[in-house]
């Protein structure tokens, strides 16, 4: 489990919604759940710094990414956040190998091409994509795409991971297997991780802790068992009922 923690305290207006949250990933993975329109994806965009904030303090361990009071805003390029968007946003014109190599070379221009290739091959092998290296993303299965998106995010040497609905693009059959793999893999890479999902099974498997986001505010937080013991809102009750 990671020694570092991603902490964020921010206020922002995104369209009609005011997002006002305080959260931290300690220890390990925090899963943010909430209904559609609660501001889950916007929250990730605010952490990445691609949406304007009214007030923010975002840090990973001792590294401050944004502190509006001090007038400090680290640009997205230097935040070192491993971002896996919903549907993965793989580069359609690049092969599996090139997708990862692009990310690695963007962060580590100091690496020689041969060293870069070796690292890319290592990562792809580790994630079971070694034999798919020369294929285009469109030929991959849902699970493979997700692993490629992970490999790509991890190759750029992130301080923390942000995953947006990491299993939503998968069909029901592969979901359980991929969820299991993702849960185990996230524990192994041991980075502070924030996962956004609307799926109860994902939240239970992936999250050490869960935060419930409703209409831009966190209405409940705790472990799965704590939340299950005393659901704080009708949404949480419905959410828990979804879990088979």
């Amino acid at each position: 489990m990671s020694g570092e923690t991603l902490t964020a305290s921010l206020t922002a207006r995104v369209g009609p919604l005011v997002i006002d949250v305080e959260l931290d990933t300690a220890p390990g993975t925090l899963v943010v759940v909430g209904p559609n329109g609660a501001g889950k994806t916007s929250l990730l965009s605010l952490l990445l710094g691609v949406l304007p904030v009214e007030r923010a303090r975002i840090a990973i361990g001792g590294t401050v990414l944004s502190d509006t009071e001090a007038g400090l805003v680290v640009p997205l390029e230097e935040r070192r956040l491993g971002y896996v968007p919903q549907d993965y946003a793989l580069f359609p014109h690049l092969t599996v190998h090139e997708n990862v190599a692009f990310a690695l070379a963007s962060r580590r221009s100091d690496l020689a091409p041969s060293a870069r290739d070796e690292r890319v091959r290592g990562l792809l092998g580790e994630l079971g994509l070694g034999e798919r290296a020369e294929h285009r993303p469109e030929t991959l299965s849902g699970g493979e795409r997700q692993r490629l998106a992970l490999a790509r995010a991890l190759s750029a040497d992130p301080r923390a991971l942000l995953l947006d609905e990491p299993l939503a693009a998968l069909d029901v059959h592969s979901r359980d297997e991929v969820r299991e793999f993702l849960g185990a893999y996230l524990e192994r890479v041991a980075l502070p991780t924030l996962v956004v999902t609307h799926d109860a099974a994902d939240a239970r498997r992936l999250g050490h802790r869960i935060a419930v986001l409703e209409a831009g505010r966190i209405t409940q937080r705790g472990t799965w068992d704590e939340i299950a013991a005393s659901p704080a809102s009708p949404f949480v009750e419905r959410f828990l009922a979804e879990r088979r």
Partner: protein
Amino acid sequence: MSRHKLRSERLALAGFGSVLALFLFMPLVSLVIATRPRSFVVALGQPFVWGVLELSLLTTLASLAIVVVFGTPLAWTLARRGGAAARAVETLVELPIVIPPAVAGVALLLAFGRRGLFAGILYPEGSSLAFSVLSVVMAQVFVSAPFYLQAAISAFRRVDERLIVVSRSFGAGPLRVFRRIAVPLAAPALVGGAAMSFARSLGEFGATLMFAGNLRGVTQTLPLAVYTALESDLGVAQALSVLLMVVALALLLVARAALGRTGERRGGRE
């Protein structure tokens, strides 16, 4: 509705529309039919024809290079900015599409001519770019760049924003995102836009005539040569016209093939 009525309504629509198609075909077909192969060969044997063709191709290639090299980053910048200033610039750079070429020629003279607004800075010695081969290129760039810019801006706007955000999250700077992600993804539409821009340069007449003149061997391009030949030798004018039409047709096919590929790519994305 009866099957007979369905068919007759369909035929009526097609028939009504084909009036325009017929009107568009007639001059083009006449041009090809009226030009006998033999007179075509004889006309192309005239020594000045190859000089004119060479000048046309060289100047249009130079304009194309200028349009693509400067236009691609401009289009990317305008596509990424949503402010009022960017919209105003976008409207201004696309204006040459709608203004008459003769007006473009006058505007170029007023800006870059010997007595133009910028003459003092550009030509302190008193000479001028007007009526030189450079002025041919300038006129072509002025009238053709908007066609490329329009295609490029719309292609860049279609690049998935999430791809840009993830690229940036890896640490990729603006130049790297532009070169490795935006341009390759927009490439088919950029090629299509470049072909349209090239075709517009090749056919450019009015602005060139006003700003560069019609000096054989210096500024006389193919369309100007057609205009000149029309007064002396109709056969040569026809041959040059057919030549221009063939090149334009080839460019149109390139543009359509490239734009077709953009459609496939967009359709193929989930």
